[in-house]
Every structure is written in C-alpha cells, then in structure tokens.
C-alpha cells in the first residue's frame, strides 16, 4: 500500500469550521499557513440546529450548531474560483451522511482546481464499521485526511483505517455533553485549551501506526503547537484560538 502524501506548505493550519470557506486575508502566525481547511460541507444544505448552544466549561466550551452550510453545489458555485486562485492547498472538509454521499462528494471535488485534499468527518453516531465504510468510499484520487475525534481515538478500527491507505489522521474535537437551559443535557463538539492533554495522549498512542497525524484540537498557543510538532505531529490545526485574532 502506498500512502499518498498530504499537501502542506507548512505544518500550521486552521481546523475545519474555524475560518469559513475560503482562505483568510490575515493569518495570525509568523509562519505561513500550510493549508486551508474549509468549513464542514454537506452534500445538501443544512440549516442551523434548532437547539443551538454554546456552553462554557473550565478551560473550554461546548458548541452545538448543527454545522449549517449551504451544501456542496452552492459552496462550489460561491468559492471554487477563490480556491483556484489560492496560494496554498485547499482541503475540502466533508460531512457526508452516508458512504455513498462521501463517494459522490469526493468525485465532484476531484477536478476542482486548488482542492488538493479531502478531510472527512463522520456523523456523530457512526460506529467503527461505518467509519471504515465511509473511509473506503472517500478514497479517491485526492489524499484523504480522516478525522478521528479524541473520544474515539482508540480501538482496532483505527488500525484498520490505517491499513486502508488514508493519507493522514486528523485528531479532531471530541464530543461531550453539558447541562443546558433548564438542566437539559446538550451534546456538541468540545473546544479549548483543556483538551491539550488529550490530543497529546492520542498523538502518542497512534504514532506507532505510521500514519501522519494532525493535531486538530486543544491547540491554543504557539507553545502547544511546538510541543505537538516535537512529539511527532505532522501538522497542527488551530480552531477557536483563531477567533481571537492573535495566537
């Protein structure tokens, strides 16, 4: 099995959902941006979740939005020209609902100028077997970075994924649950510097698989990034840290 190389101009990137659909005019690090990862894109348009929530906890926050986006067709119409003009690799982040959607979306992106890689996230409830099916369906001509949420970065399915020929694993934001309004539990993605020990631990645990690892959660400072790169990460992704405008 030949593992495709991930296209990166430097090891510093944004995480999906942190900077919209096109590369920003400004990047808060002195090092150049290695690649731009798009906002999560579904095949069909997704509206915001009815029960949107942002719930802080010590060292982080839970975000539940439903990942609204206009759908692949509209995104391509609006942003393909900017991607083609981009001076850095574009990674299209896909959130298909099933493996056949994954295959369809990847096929539509293979000839889009500027898109040099696919990053794939699983639906929240997908199990290990489904994960393998999604990954198989998304393997095409473009290198595939497969997102493994930190809360699922263990088990034999990860080794099986490695054997499929994915180009990289992105260690991404885990899901969690917090009491919301009226103490009703709210589930969502977790962000914040409190996740750093988990991403470091997952990085070290998965390193023996020999798949390039991208640390894509809990990176909130240059020191965090440096530590992860020293520990063997192929790249680091900043997420909500970018919203401050400085790192």
């Amino acid at each position, binding site marked *: 099995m030949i593992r495709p190389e991930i296209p990166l101009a430097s090891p510093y990137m944004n995480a999906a959902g*942190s900077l919209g659909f096109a590369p920003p005019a400004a990047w808060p690090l002195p090092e150049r941006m290695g690649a731009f990862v798009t906002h999560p894109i579904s095949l069909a348009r997704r509206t915001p979740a009815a029960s*949107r929530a*942002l719930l*802080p906890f010590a060292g982080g926050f839970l*975000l539940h939005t439903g990942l609204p986006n206009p759908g692949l067709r509209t995104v391509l119409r609006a942003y393909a020209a900017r991607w083609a003009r981009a001076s850095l690799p574009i990674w299209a982040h896909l959130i298909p609902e099933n493996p056949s959607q994954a295959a369809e979306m990847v096929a539509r992106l293979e000839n889009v100028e500027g898109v040099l890689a696919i990053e794939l996230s699983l639906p929240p409830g997908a199990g290990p077997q489904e994960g393998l099916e999604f990954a198989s369906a998304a393997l095409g001509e473009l290198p595939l970075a497969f997102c493994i949420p930190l809360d699922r970065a263990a088990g034999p399915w990860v080794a099986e994924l490695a054997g499929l020929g994915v180009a990289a694993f992105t260690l991404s934001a885990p899901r969690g649950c917090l009491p919301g309004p009226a103490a009703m539990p709210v589930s969502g993605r977790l*962000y914040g*510097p409190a996740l750093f020990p988990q991403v470091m631990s997952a990085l070290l645990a998965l390193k023996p698989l020999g798949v390039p690892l991208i640390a894509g959660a809990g990176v909130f400072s240059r020191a965090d990034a440096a530590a992860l790169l020293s520990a063997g990460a192929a790249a680091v992704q900043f997420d909500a840290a970018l919203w401050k*405008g*400085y790192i």
Partner: protein
Amino acid sequence: MPTFTAVLSEVRLGPGGLSGALDVPPALRPAPGQYLLASSGDPTDPLPAALFPATPPDAPLRVAPPLPAHWSGGMRLHLRGPLGHGFHLPEPARRVALAALDSAPELLLPLAHLALRSGAAVALYAAQPPQGLPDAVEALPLELLAEALSWADYLAAAFPLSSLPALRRLCALAPHQQFSMETQGLVLATMPCGGAALCGACAVLTGRGWKHACADGPVFSLNLLEEAG
C-alpha cells in the same frame, strides 16, 4: 480585519454587571450597535467576548455590561473589529423609543445621544434606567412599551433572541403582526467567531432566511426577525 490592543480601565460594577473604559483609536471605535471582539490574553481563556459601546461616538469609549466577570482594570485586551452592522437612526425620526429587554440599557445610550442631537424626543423603556442617562431622555418602565407604538416613529430595542416573543407581547402585537414604524433590534447572541467562521452559534431566523448575528447583524429590522429562531 484590524486587530489591536487596548487597556481596560475604570471598571465599574453595576446592576447589569461589569462595564469599563477602553482607549480605542477613533477609526476603530464601534458605532452604536456594532461590537469589538475582545480576548483577555490569557491562553486558558478560550472565548472572546463581544463588547458594545455605551457612550456616543465622540466621547471616551465605555463598553456596556456585562463584561466577563473575571476581567479587571488594567487588563490589556486583544481586540478585533469594529464588527457587524449597527443601528441606523432614520433621518426623519423625531420621536424615538428605545427598549432594553433582558439586557443592559447602556447598549442603547449611544443611540439616545445621537437621537437627542438630531433634535428628537427620546424615551427609554427598561427595567432600570442606566447610569449616565441624559436628563432629556424620559425613562419609562417596560410595561408601558405598547404606548410607544402610538407615538414613536422609530423603535430600537436590545434583547436576547429568546426574548423576541416577550418583546412582541410587550408591544401588544398580534401573531404575525408587523410594526407599523421603522424598527431595529440589537439581537444579543453569543458570537464566538465574530464572523471569522460563520460558525452558526449566533444563527438568526429572518424573513430572508437564516442570518448570522455576528456578520449580518447584530442589528436587524424587528419586522424581519422570526420567532422560530
């Protein structure tokens, strides 16, 4: 988008929480209803906060409460902005009603000053009048807000999105009834990305589809907002 730093000073604790002063260059000051996205510089503090002006554009900038409770005077803030679309006081408005529902009335002070300067009569409906309210502004309880619809020619409100139904009830509007005057609402939503990601946390349902408070607002026509959001 410009990023810059400024020192938070003159921090005061009022009924709505902490407020403070910021020494911000004139070109970077938010207009009424616009905001700055501010971070404390503490890397363990994961989220920036939206700061809204509480003073008119030509006075030293104070930002409205509530600031994050752990912020203190002397703290250097990293700022991004000004962001969003603010209030637009209509040229012919002569009778201006302002309403702060479940929010700090200080958010409407800059607009009150602008309206007074344009020669308009101004009334502020709020649970409690804010410090620094000009004497010329009549302070009234929210329960009287429905009366404003019979005399005002412009209504501006500040409220969390969840309070839109309550605002419509206070205005004695029937379901789907539109305001008959020009209206604007500052929708207070959590805007963590400040438009950088359009992350969806501040999504607002409007008659023209889903909008982002961070980028399309946070000020919208009240007739455009829909309660299902």
